[in-house]
């Protein structure tokens, strides 16, 4: 039984080489915060689930809570070495201000993040934003910055999924199919994440990075640290809109 499981895992590893890709964007003139800036890291928006044999993802609250806690710890550790006054919120109430307003701002950010992903990464380009990166959270973000005293807000969204035993078995069967010429390989668990930095003096999203990975496990402290490092480790300046688009790819 043990060897059968091992064979399945090895098959998966052979078929799906683990790798991590990131691609960040920033508008013209962006420079990473330095000096005496005040940064608020919003409570990370995290969801982790089980990828079933049928391909749907069943959310797992215990995994999600564990992953969020690990990411918050990793964020605190990473930002401590950055300089500036940084507050990492583990709950919406810690952010300060009206919780309902903060919730609205978080939801707007999620919609803005989805728009940036669709129109800057997935090829559905908007002609009016061809050479620009100019999404905003608007006046509410500026008012929030004025009331809270923070210069920047950092948002992080992460989704992760892990294959069930049935899914792994399906992949193994599909791999055998490939050997006889019928190759439809179901995807395994994968992670996608994005982070954005919002200038609270203007409301503008000034920097954005995405991550796509089939490696690691954010339910563990090490996996969460890798995610945070990959996503936030090297914030590039935006000397020009085009050159600010930097991609990195690494094999795990």
């Amino acid at each position: 039984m043990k060897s059968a499981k091992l064979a399945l895992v090895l098959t998966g590893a052979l078929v799906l080489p683990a790798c991590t890709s990131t691609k960040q964007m920033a508008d013209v003139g962006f420079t990473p915060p330095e000096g005496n800036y005040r940064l608020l890291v919003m409570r990370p928006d995290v969801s982790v689930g089980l990828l079933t044999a049928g391909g749907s993802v069943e959310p797992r609250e215990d995994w999600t809570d564990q992953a969020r806690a690990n990411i918050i710890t990793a964020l605190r550790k990473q930002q401590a070495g950055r300089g500036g006054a940084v507050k990492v919120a583990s709950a919406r109430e810690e952010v300060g201000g009206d919780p309902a307003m903060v919730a609205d701002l978080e939801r707007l950010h999620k919609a803005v993040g989805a728009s940036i992903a669709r129109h800057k990464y997935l090829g559905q380009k908007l002609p009016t934003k061809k050479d620009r990166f100019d999404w905003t959270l608007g006046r509410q973000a500026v008012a929030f910055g004025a009331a809270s005293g923070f210069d920047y807000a950092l948002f992080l969204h992460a989704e992760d999924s892990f294959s069930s035993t049935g899914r792994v078995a399906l992949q193994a069967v599909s791999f055998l199919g490939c050997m006889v010429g019928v190759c439809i390989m179901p995807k395994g668990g994968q992670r996608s994440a994005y982070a954005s930095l919002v200038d609270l003096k203007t409301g503008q999203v000034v920097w954005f990075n995405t991550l796509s990975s089939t490696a690691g496990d954010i339910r563990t402290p090490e996996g969460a640290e890798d995610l945070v490092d990959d996503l936030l480790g090297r914030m590039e300046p935006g000397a020009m809109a085009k050159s600010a688009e930097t991609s990195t790819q690494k094999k795990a």
Partner: protein
Amino acid sequence: MKTLPILAIAVGLGLAACAPTYTLVSPAPTLAAKGAIKVSPSLAWNRVPKGASNTKWEENWTRNGPVLDTLSFIGGLPDGEAITRQRRKDDQKVPVFRATMSPPDLVSMIESFYRIRAGASIFETTVVEPATFLGKSGLRFDFSYVGGDEVKRKGSCLMAIIDGKLYLMALDGTALHYFGAALPEFEAMAATATLG
């Protein structure tokens, strides 16, 4: 069983070639909805590619992405047709337009669309008043709603029934920022819109 909304940020997957194409709408007099409505935008917009739910009488524009703001035109929808392409399941069908619809019927038709197809859990009508649209007597309908993604949004809709057909121009956007940012442009365009 609920599925997670896995965000398809698949860097380097090469999906660009399959992606629908948005086209530029320049700030100049422009025909929309198959030439049925003529408007004069003062800003550049992006024409949203047709989707599976769009009827042939509909056209949509956006400035920052349809998730954030959408300007919709429906030009000359005939009696018996719906404002969106119908689905097979009965519980997904929206009311069809009738040339004899009263203002409350028209408002109800729009609200049903948002509840059934946009997943609006909360929908509130804020303004219903007579208005002139395309030089004819029509209706202005303002509303707010919360969709499936829990984002609060607002909408403003101008409608008129001309020769038994529905003409409509609407703005929909997030209540925080994007609706308000596009509203002056929408109102200016609607005020000067003419039949194409």
